[in-house]
């Protein structure tokens, strides 16, 4: 994050406040009127009490009698002024809060919109904890000056009236007293300059604490199984203590700013009094004038303090603004075209010379190209790290290729309208993500789908059995909290989620690895049968199981991000050594065992395991 120069901070701070006022002009106006009313009523209270003392109390004491009317009138006036004051304070408090919370909500929505909009590559670079902090602590920091802002604006009028009155009374005294303003300006410049960078650091550390906490809680199982609770606590403690130190540094500066800002108007009054007394001595002004001037100066102190509250929050506000803008201005969301994918029946898929590399890293996919005719099933096979999952992501446009294209029914996926590709193509990923929702919600994901169809999808995914046995059936809550489902059950729910959409292109990325072979076979058979009737999908299946692969019409064999061979299972078995080696690994292992009943010895890299596991081209972080 770039460091701002001081004048920049103030200007940026004012810009942020201006954004706030422009966004919520009415609420702001009400709050300002409230604070103006409060200020006027406060001055009015002193005046009213003075007048009552003068005109009601003292005459009564002097005369030894009073009238009920006079006393009642006095009481009424006091209460009436207080009612105005009460209205003012309630209005200012409530509407300032309302403004603050509305702005927070607006920006939280905007930030999370961006989270949903930005590409996956961006998400890989940004820790979840930090994004939580952006949406929460940073947004809160931006709008912190909003609470005192109406007060500051409301009493600014008071500042001008008092200043004008002082000027009118005695120029010299006014000038000396007004030295307080350049002093405040200097103080503010120093404050903003010193606090800016520290506040930025504190806010960054706040995000880091959230980052460590989120990651650590997410990895809870691993931490427990390895007994690393203390190390994790130490890691968190380091972040928490760094935040503590940064906050103390902030506190040292703020802790000086506040009392000095409060002292300055007092010193101004004293200076004015001193000069005034000299002027008085020389007969240049009257005692009455001086009394009035000191009173006016005490009135000045109030708006200055209110202004100080706003200024004190400005550096943090600007830091929060910069951090949130970082999210809001992030570019790279996938652009959409206007084409609709309206063909009926299974889709035709064409992958044309696709190259892809994760940002900043070497390519993971090199010139990958193949065609899948409608209603066909193609298996993608390759060693761990060959780029299969990356390819799956490209097929359903989770990411766009660096060069080349993916065409669905002849339409470039990039030219398709928003929402078109997910409507047509479904990917069931290797690892199942379940939302904090009911079974139904997890299957429909917000689409208006009748339960009947949900059950059909569950049946096709072989998930109807265990869902029926759940305590509340479709209404059972799952996800982060709630029902404990086994890996295989989760995978089948994810499959149902894809099937319920009746995708014309279905991409299964090792999506049934935890499902029993028998159940998997039933699922795949179902898919094949649907294809035969013409109502099914074009299926891309990434798999290791031979039975699964054998169901495919064609196999694409990949190594190191390249297509090495392509053909039927039988063809590849005879023609591709790498393919043969991969898919027959279990049989060879068994036959070796049969030949050598003794267990193999300590064999790190067993001889004969010629083919290497593929280099993890996917392993690139920027």
């Amino acid at each position, binding site marked *: 994050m770039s460091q701002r120069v001081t004048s920049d901070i103030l200007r940026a701070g004012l810009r942020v406040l201006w954004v706030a006022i422009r966004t919520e002009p009415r609420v702001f106006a009400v709050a300002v009127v409230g604070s103006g009313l409060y200020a006027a009523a406060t001055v009015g209270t002193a005046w009213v009490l003075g007048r009552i003392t003068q005109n009601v109390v003292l005459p009564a004491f002097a005369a030894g009698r009073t009238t009920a009317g006079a006393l009642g009138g006095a009481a009424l006036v006091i209460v009436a002024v207080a009612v105005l004051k009460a209205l003012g304070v309630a209005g200012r408090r409530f509407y300032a809060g309302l403004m603050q919370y509305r702005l927070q909500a607006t920006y939280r929505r905007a930030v999370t919109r961006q989270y949903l909009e930005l590409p996956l590559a961006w998400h890989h670079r940004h820790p979840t904890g930090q994004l939580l902090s952006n949406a929460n602590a940073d947004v809160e920091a931006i709008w912190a000056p909003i609470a005192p802002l109406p007060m500051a604006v409301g009493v600014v009028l008071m500042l001008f009236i008092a200043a004008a009155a002082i000027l009118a009374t005695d120029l010299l005294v006014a000038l000396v007293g007004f030295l307080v303003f350049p002093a405040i300006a200097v103080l503010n410049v120093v404050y903003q300059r010193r606090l800016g960078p520290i506040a930025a650091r504190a806010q960054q550390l706040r995000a880091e604490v959230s980052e460590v906490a989120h990651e650590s809680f997410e990895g809870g199982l691993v931490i427990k199984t390895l007994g690393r609770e203390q190390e994790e606590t130490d890691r968190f403690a380091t972040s928490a203590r760094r935040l503590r130190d940064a906050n103390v540094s902030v506190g040292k500066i703020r802790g000086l700013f506040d009392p000095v800002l409060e002292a300055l108007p*007092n010193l101004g009054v004293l200076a004015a009094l001193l000069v005034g007394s000299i002027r008085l001595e020389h007969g240049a002004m009257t005692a009455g004038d001086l009394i009035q001037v000191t009173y006016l100066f005490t009135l000045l102190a109030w708006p200055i303090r209110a202004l100080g509250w706003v200024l004190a929050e400005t550096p943090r506000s600007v830091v929060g603004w910069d951090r949130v803008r970082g999210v809001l201005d992030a570019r790279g969301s996938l652009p959409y075209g206007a084409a609709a994918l309206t063909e009926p029946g299974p889709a035709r898929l064409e992958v044309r010379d696709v190259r892809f590399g994760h940002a900043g890293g070497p390519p993971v996919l090199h010139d990958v190209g193949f065609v899948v005719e409608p209603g066909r099933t193609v298996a993608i096979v390759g060693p761990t790290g060959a780029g299969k999952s990356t390819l799956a992501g490209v097929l359903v446009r989770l990411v766009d290729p660096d060069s080349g294209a993916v065409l669905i029914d002849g339409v470039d996926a990039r030219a398709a309208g928003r929402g078109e590709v997910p409507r047509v193509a479904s990917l069931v990923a290797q690892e199942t993500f379940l939302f904090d929702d009911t079974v139904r919600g997890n299957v429909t994901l917000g689409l208006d789908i009748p339960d009947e169809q949900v059950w059909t999808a569950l049946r096709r995914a072989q998930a109807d059995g265990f869902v029926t046995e759940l305590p509340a059936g479709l209404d059972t809550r799952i996800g982060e909290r709630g029902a404990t489902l086994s890996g295989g059950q989760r995978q089948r729910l994810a499959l149902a989620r894809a099937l319920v959409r009746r995708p014309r292109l279905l991409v299964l990325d090792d999506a049934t690895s935890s499902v029993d072979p028998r159940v998997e076979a039933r699922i795949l058979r179902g898919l094949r049968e649907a294809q035969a009737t013409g109502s099914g999908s074009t299926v891309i299946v990434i798999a290791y199981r031979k039975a699964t692969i054998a169901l495919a019409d064609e196999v694409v064999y990949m190594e190191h991000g390249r297509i090495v061979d392509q053909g039927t299972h039988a063809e590849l078995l005879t023609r591709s050594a790498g393919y043969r080696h991969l898919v027959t690994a279990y049989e060879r292992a068994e036959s070796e065992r049969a030949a050598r009943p003794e267990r193999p010895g300590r064999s*790190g890299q067993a001889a004969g395991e010629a083919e290497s596991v593929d280099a993890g081209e996917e392993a690139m972080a920027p």
Partner: protein
Amino acid sequence: MTTLTTATTIDEATARTEGALRTVRRGLALSPEFRAGLAGTMLLALIATVGRLVVPVAIQQTVDKGMRGAGSAGGAPDIGFIRNAVLICAVVVVITALSAYAMNVRLYRTTEAGLATLRITAFRHVHDLSMLTQSSERRGALVARVTSDVDQISQFMQWGGLMIIVSIGQLVVASVLMAIYSWPLALMVWLIFLPFAFGLRRLQRVISRAYTGVRERVGDMLAAISESVVGAAAIRAYGAEERTERRVDETVERYRKAQTRAQGLVAMTFPSSELIAAIAIAAVVVVGTLMGVAGHLSAGKLIAFMFLVTLFIGPMQVATEVLNEAQNAIAGWRRVLGVLDTTPDVADPGQDGVELPRGPTEVRFDDVSFAYPGDGGTVLHHVDLTIAPRSRIAIVGETGSGKTTFSKLLTRLMDPSSGRILIDGVPLRDVRFSSLRERVVMVPQDGFLFDATLAANVRYGRPSATDAELAAAFTELGLADWLNGLPRGLDTRVGQRGESLSAGERQLVALARAYIADPDLLVLDEATSAVDPATEVRIQRALDGLTRGRTAVTIAHRLSTAETADEVLVFDRGRIVQRGPHRALVAEPGVYQRLYASWSAHGGIA
């Protein structure tokens, strides 16, 4: 909609039902730093407050006394007095500012230190809770408990705590002075404020609930945002942006409403205090004048009394403000205490526990049953079993047959509902966690990786491991080629949750991580399910060699693992229905034969 509730959830009830003062006391006790140098800070606060009150009065007095006589009678103002008084006032102003500065710095130091301690204590406690309890709360909400919930306390601690003490002092002084001037008037003022104080007390309770609602909504909101970030890929794959957007918007909106509601209640306290103050002053004017007319009070005393009433009202209003802030802090404390009040249902015996010597491990299950709390039903029924030292056990069964539950009990991620588990003859519950985690390591199916380098992730298994040892671990597992193929080898960064690697690669790293930890009992829960067959066979072979000295329990997703095991345990609906070596089991009719047939037909061997 119903939720599968468990008894093992965060204990919100204790802190929510106890009195506010008790919450504050317990909260303060958790951060002893708050008390450090409190006397000195109090003294500074006193000086700063007195200074703040005295300065305007002193200035007024300077003007009044200096000009006395100068106004109407034409007498000369006392210039000398004014100059001296101005000088003294200036000194007081500077002392006041310096004391306030010193007080602020001390407060920031102690409160920030105290809050850091609170965060760290709560964080540690979350990790001490069982997996079952941890998973009862969404992660975003858990994060809130150690971040923004703690932040809420700071405002009150840095400002409110002292102000309330100072305000009470001011109230007492003002009350005494008022009583000295005129006790009937003082009594009247008190009587007028009494109902306000009672009303305020009641309102505070409502405000407290409102703030607790705000804190809960923050947790919900962060949970929803966290879901939209962690589930980014799934959301994009299904075009579920709109649904997620709606969900997040709902929580943002509910949070805003809760905030506004709390603010509305808070905003009510100020006008009522203004009105009460006005009524008190009006009453003083009326009654005081009547008393004066009756000859019981002098004019000077009444005017002085009116000034004292404003001295009394000031701290009253500050106290109102502080009380509001306190409710906010209490709401934060409640959320943190909610974590700390939850006793871990799977507890570390700690110092009282047994330290197991290293060496080959024997495990015995003694009539073990397990049911998830609530209406989850029994998942494991009366398991009796001995796993001999150095043996290699394969566990097979359909999904949902209780395999993973078995492995969780074996590694004490959960405790059995009945029966007991003994490791080398010692009940698992009595073994110190430090010792247990060193000897027993499980590799779960989803090998979570931290956003760091490969080396850092593997070293997580044993922090003292050198780079050479890390590389050796990969070599011994038959993964050297894979490692060498990575552009930056061990220095490769794995990204958020390890997502820069494929699921299969993540499993390889998780395996290396467990391997470097060098446990005596290694439990693999489908730990290579996403790895290609050739690599899996190679790993299996390596592990066969490596596990000879140790006990290994493998939950097999491919029966090839079962074929090489010393013994196979066949699970079916939470019971062990068959056990024995592969060759024996495959020959006898039963679940295993069926599974094997299915595996042969659809799985590996064609």
